[in-house]
């Protein structure tokens, strides 16, 4: 039987949904509790499918985010490729962590992401974002276990689905 690989387009849909969620209009009061969806999705999928998604994918997602948010072009691309690299480099260790340890690691990665964005804002002379950026990191860390549970189910479905269901490559 010919070798088929699981389809990738559902995951790209997840990435696009994550980027869209970042730009979804919410009341201003909700800003501090909006998780960094794109960074979370990048960490999860690079950790789980390191052969498929890597630094390049993270960079492209970051660029999409920059365009959609009207940020300095390359700002999110830079931050996401750095955390993409860290995830890729340590994915074998991270993946076997117990959940609390994994959550702490994700929290640290999100903090690195936020710090890079904060730093670039400072260098470029853009107004600093204030404390909301850091509470977003906190919320992202807290939401990691449920998000991971949902993504795990999605991943299992993609990996185990009937091959005739998808167009093979």
């Amino acid at each position, binding site marked *: 039987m010919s*070798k*088929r*690989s*699981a389809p*990738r387009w559902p995951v790209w849909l997840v990435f*696009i949904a994550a*980027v*869209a969620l*970042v*730009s*979804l*209009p*919410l009341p*201003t009061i909700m*800003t501090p509790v909006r998780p960094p969806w794109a960074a979370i999705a990048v960490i999860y999928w690079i950790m*789980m*499918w*390191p*052969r*498929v998604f*890597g*630094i*390049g994918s993270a*960079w492209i997602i*970051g*660029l*999409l985010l920059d*365009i*959609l*948010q*009207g*940020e*300095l*072009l*390359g*700002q999110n*691309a*830079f931050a996401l*490729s*750095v955390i*993409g*690299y860290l995830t*890729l*480099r340590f*994915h*074998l260790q991270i993946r076997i962590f117990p959940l609390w340890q994994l959550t702490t690691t994700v929290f640290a990665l999100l903090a690195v992401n936020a710090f890079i964005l904060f730093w*670039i804002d400072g260098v*470029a*002379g*853009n*107004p*600093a*974002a*204030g404390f*909301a950026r850091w509470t977003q990191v906190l919320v992202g860390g807290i939401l990691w276990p449920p998000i991971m549970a949902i993504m795990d189910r999605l991943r299992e479905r993609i*990996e*185990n*689905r*009937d*091959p005739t269901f998808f167009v093979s490559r």
Partner: protein
Amino acid sequence: MALTTPDSDRRAFRNEGFGLRLVVLCILSVSIMVLDHNDEHLKTIRSILSAVVHPIRLVIDAPFSLGHWIGDSTATRSELSAENRRLKEQNLIQSARLQRQVALEAENTRLRALLDSTAKVSGRVLIGEIMSIDMNPFRHRITINKGSNDGLYVGQALIDADGIIGQVIRDQFFSAEALLITDIDHALPVEIVRSRLRTIAVGTGDLERLSLPFLPRNADVVDGDILVTSGLGGTFPPGYPVGIIDTIAGDSGKPFLTVGARPAAALNRIREVLLIWPEPAAAQRAAADGNDRPVSPPEAAEAIVPATIDPVGDAPALDAP
């Protein structure tokens, strides 16, 4: 039956090549950031990428548009007739005012002709809709659904029924980004209607506050004074309402008053905006000089910087957006 998953190969994935890839991508990111920050070198690339992500924008906006549409189509008959009645009344009042304005405008043109100055002619307008896209929440920027396809250009003024909203900072093919007057990077030349005193209104980062930091202690300004655009700088056409002064505080130790104003337009509740093209006086003058070149977008784009840094001269260098 299980597929071979992208990670089903049991050999550990240890590709040492990705350190290099990271370095390359980081250098690439930094160079585009520098190019993007310094100038509009990447304008075309940004436009193309923006057209690529436009479907995402439409998808994000769709539920909100749908909500509005459902709200409109499920409105009851009594609500609609009430709204209709209200609009008719409003229309009647405004038509009555307009009648007077026709006479006033004619008189104004006559007087201006006497004074030998150029006539004010109202420019072209286009209605744009604000797309429900949250940009960086720490800046006051909006995305509108009209772009360079519709003839928009950088530096173009945005107004609504109540007053000035902001100006276009990036024109893309199908959409444009605009900076609101309350953004911390925005400054616009204004005039106090009562005393004709010219100054600058600077954004504060609060959607309901403007600040006028360059009024000396002896300036003729009272609570409730109305601010309109002065037209200096060339980005904003003169005479459009900007805000109403509501706080004046003078500290005897400081050379300047602390004056605050409330924007005339309800910046957090707008959905539709009017895009205005400048009054064609400049184009007419150019044509009269035998130079039939109209005011082209690149020129207008250059005008954006002197507009945010006021020509009155008492402003310290403000960062252009």
